[in-house]
């Protein structure tokens, strides 16, 4: 499963699709996931706070393709923080739609008091609950996690969702999580750090 998809499932309730995380952090965490996917595929890299495109061939995934096109099309914007803020505005919808296309979630419109809200409800509970369960198991094992798993864990911690994933885990899992993020490859480590900064800045600004 893709990085942003796993983050989406962890950040939402696995039975009714309700958000567990406030919208600002959800958007930024997902934006971090989308950029992270492009870094893992080798399309872009992050250094000194700047995103740089290194491979312009289209990625297989449609959403990753769209994001890469945006990065190429607006090369005057390179700051990671700018891209995180920009992608965060639409990430919940675009990643929700991607999971709906993949048959993991079902788009549901709720009409309440003249406002229509969209939620994405799990089709199969086990599929929706799997990322959190799997990552918890990863943290319980002593061998180091794969890079994609470590990235999801890093983004989860950056968005302030650690306790949602580790609610039943022991102190060793917490300790291990603290070691995983510093061990990430440099571009991913920086991406996670900028996501954490952006989430904190959103809290300080006080505007949800």
């Amino acid at each position, binding site marked *: 499963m893709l990085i942003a998809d796993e983050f989406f499932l962890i950040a939402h309730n696995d039975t009714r699709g309700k958000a567990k995380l406030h919208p600002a952090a959800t958007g930024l965490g997902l934006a971090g996931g989308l950029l992270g996917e492009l870094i893992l595929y080798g399309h872009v890299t992050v250094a000194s706070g700047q995103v740089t495109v290194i491979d312009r061939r289209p990625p297989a995934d449609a959403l990753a393709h769209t994001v890469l096109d945006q990065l190429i099309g607006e090369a005057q914007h390179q700051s990671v923080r700018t891209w995180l803020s920009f992608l965060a505005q639409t990430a919940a919808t675009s990643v929700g739609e991607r999971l709906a296309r993949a048959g993991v979630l079902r788009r549901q419109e709720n009409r309440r008091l003249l406002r229509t809200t969209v939620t994405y409800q799990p089709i199969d509970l086990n599929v929706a609950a799997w990322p959190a369960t799997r990552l918890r198991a990863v943290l319980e094992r002593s061998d180091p996690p794969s890079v994609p798993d470590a990235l999801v864990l890093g983004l989860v911690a950056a968005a302030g969702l650690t306790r949602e994933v580790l609610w039943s885990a022991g102190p060793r899992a917490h300790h291990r999580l603290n070691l995983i993020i510093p061990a990430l490859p440099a571009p991913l480590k920086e991406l996670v750090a900028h996501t954490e900064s952006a989430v904190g800045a959103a809290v*300080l600004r006080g505007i949800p």
Partner: protein
Amino acid sequence: MSSTATTERQSNVSEALARGRLGVPSVIFFVLSAAAPLTVVAGVVTTGYGVIGVLGIPLAFLAVAAVLALFSAGYVAMARRTANAGAFYAYVTRGLGRPAGVGTAWVALIAYNALQVGLYGTIGAAAEPVLDRLFGIQPQWWVVALVAWALVGVLGLLRVDINGMVLAALLCAEIAVIVVFDLGQLGNPAGGSVSFAAFSPDNFFVPGVGAVLVLAILGFVGFEASVVFSEESKDPKRTVPMATYLSVAIIAVVYALSSWSMTVAVGPDRIVEEAGTQSVGLIFNLAGAHLGSTVLTIGEALFLTSVLAAMISFHNTTARYTFALGRERVLPAVFGRTSPATGAPQAASLAQSVLGLLVIVLYAVNGWDPVLQLFFWLGTSGGFGVLLMIATTAVAIIAYFARSGEQETLWRRLIAPGIAAIALTAIIVLAVQNFANLLGVEPDSPLRWIFPAVYPVAALLGGLWGVMLRRNRPDTYARIGLGAESAAAIVAAPSDSGPVPTSAEVRR
């Protein structure tokens, strides 16, 4: 950063990000609603006349406004170049070093907490007429304070920042009521003629002038928040400076006019005595006599909402300060965590609430006077703390520009902050001399030394803590002053230094 902001080509990214950006009016509304004008006019100014006994309060507002406008010239210029721009200690860190920054952060925590907790002392007085009229009940002040405390605590945890539109509407209503009150007072001068004695320098340069100046600073607290939006505003070079100057000017005019019109209506010779006996009720009693009961009722209701809004705003300010320090790991990391569902800085908010509860209980059990000893003492002490921070920041601004060699006009980097620093230092010296007047205690009371001494002690301890961090936890030391941005600082060099490398850019 700013080099990418202006581009001829249509940009989806710029457009999408600009949509939520604030203009000058929005920033002014944000600043003024935190300043809670009716709380200051009805609560601080009346108590100030009564306690300090100096007529020159209107002139003090104008003098302080001039100093703060000078200070703001350098302040907004540095804000554009500073992460965590809403916090004075961020400026001190970059200008005067990290230990000084931690010292300032300690001072800030005490000052903002004092300002917030002090407001619990006046909510009883503010609610009394409203509750009496609505339900015919007259509860103890601490019952009202505890209800307000619970409300603030819950809203803080749920992160219900009151809707901006509601705050803006309340603010407009408050200012309208203040102006109507002022006109009523000016239309009914004592002795039949309008007296300008309150603006006379003879009534300003008297023993107690330092106390009056601290009181005036207290009225302006909140103006520093405008720079929080340095990066979120439509035009960082124009929006925030404009909003800051206009906020200071509006506050100055409203407060000077109101404090002067009170002296006109009561009479310059009797204002001190009347304010001493009627306290917070003074302007409402005047309004009742001049304007009738409808305007009076509206005014009393708005005073209550104004105090509540100020409480919530200061609670959130304090909680965010604590959160930023937790993010840097200068305070325990738990303060840097948020509630996942709401994004509220949970532990920080709870800590502030616990402090508020302790103080309310302490005052209730000992039977201390809520308006004078809680509201006025803690309020003015908090104002004094903010004064110390502004003065330190003014020096830090000069040091920062001197060391970094950043391009800036001589006026903004040296002259304006220099004059402001000298003036603020003079105010501090006068304030310390007059602290007994400020508190309304005997000149030999130990309290006149204890209250002002809290800050240098805290600054010293904070500085020592900073030095200890340098030795024991260099990672944390490197993050000091960066607030939420500290997370990114440990992996990358600060992104605002040096030009952006362009060689790796993709070609179209």
